[in-house]
């Protein structure tokens, strides 16, 4: 093979790793907040992503039927809408269920699993059991080809950019905003946070809803690279949990690092072996490392 070809493939493979990194990070981020910061094992995370994806579908259908002039531009609005739809749903779920369960983290797992079953059946009953395909703007679907033989997927670029924005936003919010301060205070010491006048209940609800909202954004973004159906969300849930756990649950930076590590591991091993074995190898590595280092890559430094 010519050197130029190898260079191209190398670059595209590097990009594949990066874009998988962005995907993993985006799906892990919401969970890192909900699971990492609050300790809620949100098994319905995938369904909140699906909710975001269906929001895109709704907007694309609306745009096609009523506002054909917006078919190229509705997407950005829809992503914001996806955030708010999932945010609202998360708000309700927190109010109805999660707030009663903060002292029983393992029970949040069962309850949210129930939520995820219910949401899946809702999608099936109200939207339909078949997959749908939102019509995406042309500018999103295609490749950017700087020179012959090198194709960079635009949807990959888009997801990366979005991930960058969302991650930046979350980091800023968590470390610079009042809300972030309240969240960190609540995580560090709930009774004390309460005592100094932080409304921890409100903070919890806000945090959970924001986590779900980010899941919605992730789901919306994934319509460019994946399927939209009642059970699409379940494809992501285990990966999302592993990303967060592997990174060290309480550390947002850890989530970033672990998403990067897992993405590179998987994407490189996939290039050299079959997809199934690559998956097994990646998962095994994660499990073995977690067995050796259960606190994850970046442990939170709290004295127990």
């Amino acid at each position, binding site marked *: 093979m010519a050197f130029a070809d190898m260079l191209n493939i190398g670059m595209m493979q590097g*990009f*594949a790793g990066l874009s998988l990194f962005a995907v993993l990070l985006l799906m892990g981020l919401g969970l890192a907040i909900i699971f990492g910061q609050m300790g809620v094992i949100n098994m319905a995370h995938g369904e909140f992503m699906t909710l975001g994806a269906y929001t895109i579908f709704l907007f694309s259908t609306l745009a096609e039927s009523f506002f054909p002039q917006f078919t190229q531009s509705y997407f950005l609005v829809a992503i914001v809408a996806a955030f708010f739809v999932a945010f609202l749903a998360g708000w309700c779920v927190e109010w109805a269920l999660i707030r009663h369960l903060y002292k029983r983290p393992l029970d949040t797992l069962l309850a949210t699993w129930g939520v995820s079953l219910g949401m899946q059946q809702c999608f099936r009953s109200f939207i*339909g059991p078949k997959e749908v395909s939102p019509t*995406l703007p042309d500018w999103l*679907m295609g490749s950017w*080809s700087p020179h012959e033989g090198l*194709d960079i*997927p635009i949807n990959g670029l888009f997801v990366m950019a979005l991930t960058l924005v969302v991650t930046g936003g979350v980091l800023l919010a968590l470390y610079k905003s009042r809300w972030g301060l309240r969240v960190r205070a609540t995580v560090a010491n709930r009774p004390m946070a309460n005592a100094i006048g932080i409304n921890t209940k409100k903070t919890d609800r806000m945090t959970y809803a924001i986590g779900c909202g980010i899941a919605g954004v992730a789901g919306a973004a994934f319509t460019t690279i*994946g399927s939209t159906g009642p059970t699409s969300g379940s494809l992501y849930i285990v990966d999302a949990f592993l990303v967060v756990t592997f990174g060290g649950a309480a550390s947002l930076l850890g989530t970033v690092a672990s998403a990067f590590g897992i993405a590179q591991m998987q994407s490189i091993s996939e290039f050299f072996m079959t*997809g199934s074995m690559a998956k097994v190898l990646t998962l095994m590595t994660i499990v073995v490392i977690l067995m050796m280092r259960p606190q994850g890559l970046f442990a939170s430094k709290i004295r127990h």
Partner: protein
Amino acid sequence: MRDHASPKPRSTLRRHLMQGLVALPLIGLSAIGQAAPPATAVVNTTKLAVTDTEVTVGQLHSATGTMAISETGSIQAEQLAIDQINAMGGVLGRKIKVIKEDGASDWPTFAEKSKKLLINDRVAAVFGCWTSASRKAVLPIFEKENGMLYYPTFYEGLEQSKNVIYTGQEATQQILWGLDWVAKEKKAKTYFLVGSDYIWPRTSMKIARKHIESVAKLGKVVGEEYYPLGHTNFNSLINKIKVAKPDVIFIAVVGGSNVSFYKQLKAAGVTAAKQTLLTISVTEDEVLGIGGENMAGFYASMKYFQSLDNANNKAFVQAFKAKYGAKAVIGDVTQAAYLGPWLWKAAVEKAGSFDVDKVAAASVGIEFKGAPEGYVKVHPNHHLWSKTRIGQAQADGQFKVVAESPELIEPNPFPKGYQ
């Protein structure tokens, strides 16, 4: 589920017309209009659920779970066929009553429900299953309890049972002619095979590889890759394909993975303009999820496409849309599922009995001229003689039929030389 649970026929008159239209080519298929239905004691010697006015059949598909995406079409098509048969007076003068069971995308549940249908409900026939795994799970039960299963999906072959009629194509029927066509039309020499990691794609690829490399000597396989079910990231695979630079990518990826695969393929600049791609796993149903614009120009090898231009099919499509809405699409499996009740009806009437042994024996040689795909005939190995077609995906989600095998292809579930 709404669309199939609460069908809203627009106009009863139109629907009847439609059914009549479908029924037209059926005249002559069997003796219709017998004066009085034969006595139940005569047509049912094995204690099946048959009364003087009714015959009970089962329908066993996944209405929930991951497979509901695929199986919904089959559920609808079977129901349509049964409604049409009932509108024509039923089978041996008895209306068909359906017991619906949900296999819930879970193979043990399929086994449990099939036991229930056969042992408790004593149904005369079951229309159902979609995945190979669910069929494998129920097969011993059908053989043990002597039931009759009409299985609609194209599948890997390597199976033949007295108790099953396979209304979809087995692998060689679907694959070989398609490969020959692509080799001839596209002058393809190198092939890259990609599948989901389970039995059907693996067997299909095995057959394809043998065909390409040793039987028909079409060229060379330059890559063969399998991904776990539900895999969503194909960028590394696409790079592998780019390294291998095959003339043809031959695909058997299923489920949600399909969508990811084609979207990412398009995003990586692999479009129909630059690359020939032949799939055996994408029907009109899957295109709904993938999006026509992401598939446009690629080829699929199937026995049926919704756009097939013949009178039977036009009537079928119209009746289907009348029942399930104008947006409903019909894929290969949906059509094959539609054949099930009709083939069963013909076999029962030929046998003059609902008894499974007699129906199974009578099934061989049954012809069905009213099939939307054209003419089909049951082979002694219980598969169907059928044609294979190449469809080219269009942006609107339909396929344009660009080629059709001149003759019916013989089903060959245990192909010599391909093992």
